[in-house]
């Protein structure tokens, strides 16, 4: 593949997915700084491996590269991934003030609960619930069977439901 072709494919396939890569790297890391290092490493590896990429499912491909890089990073550092910093807040995009307050409460609780999930659970939740990947895509991205994706997702959601117990999101707690 020529240099120009590689550049074009990188621009077409990888660059549009940079926000996705940043979010996924964050879900695989314990701090924003660690996430940025991971995303940078992933970009570099993606560029170098572009010739062997068939162009299908760039998100799953990038997530797989990031996942492998994260495994190597954690192996090197022998880290116990405990969140150091919380994700930044974001605009909620809803108009009703009561909903804003309730959603903000839930988002805060959920954000903490997401950060507290074991990394293997957090990655699956990020790929399936946030990035809306199919089970099969997430399984390929993470290099695990579909059944593992389903069980991790189930267990992660159960933990998250426990975390929001008593908030507006807990249907049993509603008046």
């Amino acid at each position: 593949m020529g240099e120009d072709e590689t550049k074009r494919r990188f621009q077409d396939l990888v660059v549009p997915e940079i926000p996705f890569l940043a979010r996924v790297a964050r879900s695989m890391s314990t701090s924003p700084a660690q996430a940025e290092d991971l995303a940078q490493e992933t970009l570099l590896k993606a560029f170098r491996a572009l010739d062997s990429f068939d162009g299908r499912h760039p998100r799953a491909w990038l997530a797989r590269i990031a996942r492998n890089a994260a495994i190597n990073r954690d192996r090197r550092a022998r880290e116990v991934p405990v969140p150091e910093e919380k994700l930044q807040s974001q605009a909620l995009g809803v108009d009703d003030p009561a909903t804003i307050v309730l959603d903000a409460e839930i988002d805060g609780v959920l954000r903490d609960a997401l950060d507290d999930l074991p990394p293997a659970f957090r990655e699956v939740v990020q790929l399936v619930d946030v990035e809306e990947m199919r089970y099969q895509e997430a399984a390929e991205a993470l290099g695990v069977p579909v059944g593992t994706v389903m069980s991790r997702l189930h267990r992660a959601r159960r933990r998250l439901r426990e975390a929001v117990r008593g908030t507006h999101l807990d249907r049993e707690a509603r008046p």
Partner: protein
Amino acid sequence: MSWLAHVPGTGAWNRRRLHRLCRETLDRIQELVDEEVPSPRRAAVLLEHVRDCPPCAREADAVRELKDAIRRTGCVDDPGMVARLTELAERLPDSEP
């Protein structure tokens, strides 16, 4: 269980069928909400059951609401990081041998 529960059309049969459908729906609620039930025909049966069964409908709504909240919470872009990565991506083709 009464032998009537095995005779189609009887009240006991209907109750038994409903109980089994509830159990299957709750077992597969995640796949149902994620639209990942492998068989479309089975998915249609379970969805129809969810429409008619308040407890199953409540459970499906709870999973759906949690999923929505996770999406809202997890879809956080860090504009600074995205900008720096974009800048790196622009430099990469020229800096890589």
